């Protein structure tokens, strides 16, 4: 199986602070990969590096064998990497439908002149974009809210909208930054099912940052543990659970 995403010795420094140091990670296509670690371990920084918001100080990130580090974020998104954000970043004053359509727009093929004169491919492309976006919203149970401003959605629905929006890019790789943040145990187990469904239905490889261990252990095929910007463990959920260094990072050094 070829690797979908390869992170090769990536280091990220902000001034004197080393947020990520010599990170190596390989994500094969088709799996669900979890990233865990204490607060400030550099998990979100890693996402920002993959999606091009930051440029790595050192190292290379490859996607489908092609180097993506150093590219503009929009370019990386168009390569097929979708993401959500830790503190939801939906387009608040736009409608729910418009939120999804903006991500879908990159697949529309018409030029400025066609849209100016309302001729050629414009009409069909726009109709298709609305239809496809509605389909997507339907799948997420949001089609009833299509024409209300996204800020009017409940917190949970906003999180779902953010995932729907990322999927409108038709990504092969989906990065989820704490999808279960702020959810209780019941909601979290519903989310596990929901994510499993997304993975099967949309055929995406997922990388998710999460603090809810239950969700991570149930859903992920592989887990990487970060602490102070370093990969301290890497393996299947069972291996991670048994790893003494992980327990140490989470609970502090053992006194013995």
């Amino acid at each position, binding site marked *: 199986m070829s690797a979908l995403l390869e992170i090769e010795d990536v280091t990220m420094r902000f001034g004197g602070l080393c947020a990520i140091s010599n990170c190596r990670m390989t994500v094969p296509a088709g799996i669900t990969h979890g990233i865990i670690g204490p607060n400030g371990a550099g998990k*979100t920084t890693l996402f*920002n590096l993959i999606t091009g*918001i930051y440029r790595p100080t050192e190292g290379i990130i490859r996607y489908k064998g092609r180097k993506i580090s150093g590219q503009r974020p929009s370019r990386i998104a168009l390569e097929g990497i979708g993401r959500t*954000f830790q*503190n939801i970043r939906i387009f608040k004053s736009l409608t729910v439908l418009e939120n999804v359509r903006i991500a879908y727009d990159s697949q529309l093929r018409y030029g400025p002149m066609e849209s100016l004169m309302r001729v050629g491919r414009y009409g069909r492309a726009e109709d298709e974009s609305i239809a496809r976006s509605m389909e997507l919203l339907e799948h997420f149970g949001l089609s009833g809210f299509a024409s209300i401003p996204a800020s009017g959605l409940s917190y949970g629905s906003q999180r779902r909208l953010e995932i729907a929006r990322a999927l409108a890019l038709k990504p092969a790789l989906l990065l989820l930054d704490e999808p279960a943040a702020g959810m209780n145990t019941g909601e979290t187990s519903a989310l596990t099912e929901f994510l499993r469904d997304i993975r099967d239905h949309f055929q995406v490889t997922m990388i998710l940052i999460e603090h809810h261990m239950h969700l991570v252990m149930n859903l992920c095929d592989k887990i990487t543990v970060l602490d102070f910007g370093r990969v301290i463990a890497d393996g299947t959920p069972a291996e991670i659970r048994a790893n003494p260094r992980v327990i140490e990072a989470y609970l502090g050094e053992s006194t013995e």
Partner: protein
Amino acid sequence: MAYFAQQAVNAISLGFLYALIALGYTMVYGVLTMINFAHGDLFMLGAFICLLLVTFSPIALPFPILLVLVMLIIGGLGGLIERLAYRPLRDAPRVSAVITALGCGLVISNTTLSISPYSRAMPEVFNDQYFNVFGVGISTLQMLIIGVSLALMIGLDALIQKSRFGMALRAVAFDARSAPLMGISVNRIISLTFLIGTGLGGAAGMLYGMAFPVISASMGVLVGWKAFIAAVIGGIGNIRGAVLGGFILGTVEIFSVATLPSTYRDLISYSLLLVILIFKPYGILGRAPNIKV
């Protein structure tokens, strides 16, 4: 050589004036991250208040009392504008506050213009004398400008670095949301910042009016906004940057006027601003804001 030295003296005194006005812009920006476009017009008003006081006062007011009065009146006005126009917008989109500031500035300058459509001559506040130091002419007024500005800046620096108010101010500038958790009254700090910042601008207006004794309502845009350039060049929000920017701009202006037709002055100042912003988008000493993703 003497010519050069003469221009250097002029540049220093102009630089001090710009720095004094720029401090007001930069203090407000540091605390509220908001450009107080009305500041230039309050500066202009400082000159006019001085004119009013000199003209209508029954007794001849000595310079120090005049200075304190102007600073108090302008500072009070600045605080009032903050209370009435800016505070309701503290949580509104940032653009709203900037537009409001622009609007307030226009209200002040056009009210002044409507009341006094023509430029006026500033009466002499004290007997100005000219000294010749090694072939370089320096007037009492220039010495006074440098002295007063220097005193005010040192005072401000001490206030910010040493006093409790200064500590609170730095805390609010650092993080206005967690400062109240430390028992700091953010509203009081912001009001005081406006009071001091615009007060300094008023003092600069008075000094400027005395040095270039023709004052008009358009002074706020013509001179006040220059000081704004100075603040931005130095890195707005940064107090030392304001002083640095003031001197850079003063030097550039004096020497460009000495070598080129004076009509090129604005062109050069604003081009300098544009060029610096292209290469250092946040000014010489300024830092890019941290955006959390």
